């Protein structure tokens, strides 16, 4: 089976409830960030977070989603991960998705690192046996050592990122969806993570990664999709994107 993600004319409206639409609307004029806001009925503001997204991601793609804060990266990730349903347009996905959107999501801060590995594995519908057989590999890749016996609430963001990434990539997934938390790891870890993603793609998998880290994009990704105001501003290979950025800066 070939893996593919295809978005056709996807729009996504956020409905923000119980806010004064009025004051929100006036605030938007001062806002340097964000999607387009328009008025919906009553006390509900609608935010057009994504509009007319056409995107085809094929086997072997490591695609980076870039753009400034509020440009719609995480929203697009959540649409791809099936968490948000498009308001309009079509989304088709072939393949089993593993999404790691928020740092610490699905982890229990009171439980130890080891128990959280089980918990994350459980959420991926893996049997205890399968998790146990991979736990050494996860421990080694995360580089957390004895910290795995401590509760996760004692971890730094970087340590949590290491643990989550190790779990996310140790078990087979057709499509891996990662938000920008990856850059919470230090340089050595980002290097290691990049190598591992490379390997995943060699096994004909898809990686979708939202990030601000241009270095990471160049090291890890072969395609780039730049979002601006909820629209695709650039879509192409990483080399073309670097040239596009250079031209934009000039």
């Amino acid at each position: 089976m070939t893996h593919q993600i295809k978005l056709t004319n996807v729009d996504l409206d956020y409905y923000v409830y119980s806010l004064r639409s009025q004051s929100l609307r006036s605030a938007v004029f001062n806002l340097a960030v964000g999607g387009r806001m328009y008025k919906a009925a009553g006390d509900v503001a609608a935010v057009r977070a994504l509009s007319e997204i056409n995107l085809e991601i094929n086997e072997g793609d490591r695609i980076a989603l870039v753009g400034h804060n509020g440009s719609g990266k995480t929203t697009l990730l959540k649409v791809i991960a099936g968490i948000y349903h498009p308001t309009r347009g079509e989304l088709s996905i072939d393949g089993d998705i593993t999404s790691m959107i928020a740092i610490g999501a699905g982890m229990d801060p009171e439980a130890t690192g080891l128990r959280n590995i089980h918990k994350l594995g459980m959420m991926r519908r893996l049997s205890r046996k399968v998790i146990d057989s991979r736990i050494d590999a996860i421990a080694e890749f995360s580089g957390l050592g004895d910290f795995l016996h401590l509760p996760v609430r004692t971890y730094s963001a970087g340590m949590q990122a290491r643990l989550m990434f190790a779990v996310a990539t140790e078990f087979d997934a057709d499509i891996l969806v990662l938000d920008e938390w990856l850059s919470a790891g230090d340089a050595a870890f980002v290097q290691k993570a990049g190598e591992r993603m490379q390997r995943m793609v060699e096994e004909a998998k898809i990686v979708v990664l939202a990030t601000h880290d241009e270095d990471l994009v160049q090291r890890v990704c072969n395609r780039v999709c730049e979002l601006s105001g909820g629209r695709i501003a650039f879509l192409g290979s990483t080399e073309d994107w670097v040239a596009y950025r250079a031209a934009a800066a000039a």
Partner: protein
Amino acid sequence: MSSPLMAAFKDVGDAIRLAPLWWRLGLDQTASRFQRSILGPFWMACNLLVVAFALAFIVGGLMGVNLRESYPQVVAGLLAWSLVGTTIAEAQAIFLYNAGLMQSQRLPLTFYVFLHAQKAATNFLTQLIAFWAMMLVLGRFAAPHWTLLPAVALVLLSVCFLGFIIAIPSTRFRDVAYMMSYVVQLLFYVTPVFWTRAQMSPKYRWVVDYSPLAHQVELLRAPLTGHAPAAIDWLWSLGTVGAFALIAIALLALFRKRVVFWL
């Protein structure tokens, strides 16, 4: 699967297929609630023990009821209420409690409702063991009637459907969420848990006769104290579960895609 109604049924079907996952996750969430405590999940059983113990004094002392006769009735009623009533109060948090998970992983909406029912069932089972242990110690143990099994199954179905009916509006309108705990308190007092229908003045008996919750409590209490529930309790319970099912499916069809934006 373009029609919303078909999508709602598909959502339920997907959640049924995920049974191993919500089963494990429910046990895990129950266990983690009692992390770092020594008694662990047995704290849930303590709830029943303490209330039963306090009632023994108050009902016996204040009202002079011959407690030896009514005590098992009252405690069985409390046990039944923990599944019929308390779950209503907990249902408001079905989606709010799992907001983190809902925003990071694709799972059917029904999954969270089943998760809620699983936790309710675990809680009920723990308290049931405490109930039997207590009755054995007091020498009032009555062998449960076999209808306990279908009765619990039917009430659990009701817990699921009511879960949708309460959780969906509670997520959208947070006032509903706060209101629910007071509504449940009110419902507790109008349900014959530590009083009986016979004690109520005939003028107000309709409060019991037309209350779906009173019939559900009776449906569980009768087999717990060793006899079969009345046919009228079965009829009422089946009827209300059917009605709840229709409302729940309608809500799911209408708002399935929206709930995640309300978190």
